[in-house]
């Protein structure tokens, strides 16, 4: 039995560094949500490691009073993989943005998801490059006018969730940057999940891409525009809780309860734990409603479990316990 973890508050996780994001940035919400989530996770402060790449979001580790590394552009998932493989007891978090993870770090992003180490990735998606002052990112929309696309962006965007599920992500959640309680809860759920968890936060950049998610996230519309899924619950949304999703052929369709004989019984029930990601892909792609919550949470063997099992096997089969056994084995000969 491990020693009980002491009681923490969010202050225990706040470093002495002054936070330097722009006023009004959702990054503050995410930071505070993390500082509030960590005391709920039952992990020791000294076992928590934050690894980030480059970009506004990647300053995050400096503000957390845990172990942390602000590394180089795009490489945080690979660094975090090394941390986790070296010490599987640690709670390892990757902090990244849409450019960091899906442009310069795209390769590491898909491979970390494929391998399924038990670590967590928080993806701050603001559909823009902030730190370099306003160029389009791999999630910027076609036609979007930015510093590097003055006549409109011509490159079609990635959907982070679609890319992640294509790379075999076992856990994918999406949350809006203006919903601190939901963010906090998703962080706690992600830590509990054994495997790589990806959390996409729709994060407003008030300077270079202000309002990019307003049509989904604004308080006035969000209940009508967002479907917050929960495992085992029907897919209902709307201010009046009268809208829902059904499957029509190979497409999702929005229906209204009470119209055309539709009842709550007819709605899809969310199964986040399903291995087949087909329906999860549809939810990820849906624009109306835009789906938030834990879309996929499929339990699978982790990389460290496979590695551990192999190591145990090799150790028990091996006649070598120290290097001398190896060096002096096989074809050796004496010279007098």
């Amino acid at each position, binding site marked *: 039995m491990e020693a009980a973890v002491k009681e923490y508050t969010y202050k225990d996780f706040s*470093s002495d*560094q002054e936070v330097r994001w722009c006023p009004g940035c959702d990054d503050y919400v995410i930071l505070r949500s993390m500082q509030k989530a960590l005391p709920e996770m039952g992990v*020791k*402060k*000294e*076992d*928590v*490691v934050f*690894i980030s790449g*480059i970009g506004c979001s990647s300053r995050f*580790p*400096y503000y*957390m*009073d*845990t*172990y*942390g*590394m*602000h*590394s*180089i552009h795009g*490489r945080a998932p*690979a*660094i*975090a*993989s*090394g*941390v*986790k*493989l*070296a*010490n599987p*007891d*640690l709670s390892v978090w990757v902090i990244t943005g849409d450019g960091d993870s899906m442009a310069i770090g795209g*390769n*590491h992003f898909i*491979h970390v998801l494929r391998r399924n180490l038990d670590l967590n990735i928080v993806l701050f998606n603001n559909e823009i490059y902030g730190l370099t002052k306003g160029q389009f990112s791999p999630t910027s929309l076609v036609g979007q006018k930015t510093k590097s696309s003055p006549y409109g962006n011509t490159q079609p965007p990635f959907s982070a969730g679609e890319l992640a599920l294509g790379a075999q992500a076992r856990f994918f959640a999406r949350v809006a940057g203006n919903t601190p309680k939901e963010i906090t809860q998703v962080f706690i759920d992600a830590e509990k999940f054994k495997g790589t968890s990806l959390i996409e936060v729709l994060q407003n950049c008030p300077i270079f891409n202000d309002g990019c998610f307003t049509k989904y996230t604004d308080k006035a519309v969000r209940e009508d525009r967002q479907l917050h899924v929960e495992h085992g619950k029907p897919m209902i949304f709307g201010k009046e809780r009268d809208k829902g999703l059904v499957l029509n052929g190979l497409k999702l369709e929005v229906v209204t309860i009470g119209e055309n004989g539709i009842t709550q019984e007819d709605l899809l029930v969310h199964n986040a734990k399903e291995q087949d990601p087909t329906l999860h892909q549809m939810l990820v792609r849906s624009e109306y409603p835009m789906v938030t919550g834990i879309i996929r949470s499929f339990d699978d063997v982790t990389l460290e479990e496979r*590695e551990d099992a*192999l*190591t145990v096997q*090799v*150790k028990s089969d*091996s006649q*070598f*316990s*120290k*290097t*001398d056994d*190896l*060096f*002096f084995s*096989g*074809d*050796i*000969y*004496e*010279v*007098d």
Partner: protein
Amino acid sequence: MITAKAEPQEVLEAVIIRFVGDSGDGMQLTGTQFSDTSAMFGNDVATFPNYPAEIRAPQGSLYGVSGFQVHIGSVEISTPGDNVDLLVAMNPAGLKTNLRALKPGHTVIVDTDSFSKKNLEKAQYESNPLEDGSLENYRVIEVAMTSLTKETLKAVEGLDNKSITRSKNMFALGMVYWMYDRSTDYTIEFFNKKFKNKPQIIEANTKVLNAGYYFAETLELIPNAYTIAPAKMESGTYRIIMGNTATAWGFLAAAEKSGLELFLGSYPITPASDILHELVKHKHFGVKTLQAEDEIAGITSAIGASFAGDLALTTTSGPGLALKGEALGLAMMIELPLVVVDVQRGGPSTGLPTKTEQSDLLQAMYGRNGESPIIVIAASTPSNCFDFAYEAAKLTLEHMTPVLLLTDGYIANGSAPWKIRSVDDMPEIKNNKVSEAHENWHPYDRDENSLARNWAIPGSPGLEHRVGGLEKDRVSGNVSYVPENHEYMTKIRAEKVKRVQNYIPDIETEFAQEGDLLVVGWGGTYGSLYSAVKQMSDEGHSNIGIAHFNYINPLPKNTEEVLKKFKKIIVCELNSGQFVQILKTNFNGFEFLQLNKVQGLPFANNELIQKFKSLVK
């Protein structure tokens, strides 16, 4: 079972043999068996494989030729040798591409069965060299090896035609064993182990090996056999080791000695992959490996493992080192231990992946943005790859800065006897880990002598801290844009590497300690330079010495003193002159002569001797 002959034979000091054939003919195995048997017999040996970049090039083609050269002797052997005393050619393409390496008047053994019209065409022979007189300057031994092998195996049941033909290399090996008075025992034992569950294959190979041996014995074309007496080597327990294996084992030893777990993050690349192949076998020692998605993930996963407290390693070759540059700068900036091994190959770009060169030196020294000095060392023989891998681990752990270990394709793929080092006899390895928090602890507190910072590992309560690629405050490690702090940190990172001089041995000169000519080299050319200087010394040139460098950044403290003791200095490198640039930058007032070769090949003995003789008169 055959034992070696008792009759007296012509005694030779050393002999160089090259086995060549199609890439599917098993020449690597044949050569390895010959060198291992010779080593067991007590000879000093050096080997070098030469195989095509294509895995299965079209059969019989010139670019599909695979070769293996073995140099054995009763005297000290430092290189796989240049021109050969015996060439064994399993097909026309092998003969065509390797004949120029055979010394005039010496012997070539050919498999006449392979000299078909089709194979001759593929080898671009207009007429059959066995018939047109073009081999008249050599002793040609024509043997119908394929048919003799078939004949030998006709009674063995359960063998398909392909397996039969494939064992003809053992016929050739049997012949060569007889010629050089070697026993077949070791190879037969090898068959018994390797094909434990395939008794027909053991039987077939043993039969063919013996058939070749008896054939040579009874063949009148081989008038006398040669013998090579055991070499006078330091007493001890030996094994034959390839450079890449020795490198891998050096890290295993360092991990055990330091009490740390070894982590390797790597992406496959020729000629470095064998280090990954070797380390991945050793999970029983707690070795963790990640075959990463690319070169960058190879090094960055290692940086992560280092942050978490492992002895971290990444292995690569030139193009991979270029990709790792930014991450190597990060490791230097955050002052974590990390070893990068660059097994150099011919460059630039994809260059000559299976050939050797020393052209990554300046990339190793300077190939990063900003001012980012790191420790650079180089191994110089297949077996001392072990020592320098160990040293790389020791230096990185004790000095908290990355170490770049340079080897090259020549010593990495070459093999030589290694006097086995027990971990008990290796030097201590300390590290800078702190486990307990104390008041006034800071992540960038340094050892006052080495300037190494301390190493606080996640999981240690009270030592939570952040590191990163942004410039750090000299004490807290927090981000700092203070101008004076940046200059201070730039200087201290450089000074830390410079002070490694206080922890490494002086450079030693071999042969003349002062005189007319100092031959300077570094890394994998040691064997070639040593042999040439030794030969001149044996011939009575007492005024020539050699200083061969393993420590490049920093250079040994006494370097300038050594340089001053000679009238002329020649710096020999397999590049256009990179180490000489480093010497020129560090030492004024010297005229550095140069001998450079950029052909993807090692130095040949005669080109070195010729050059050195022109300088000493």
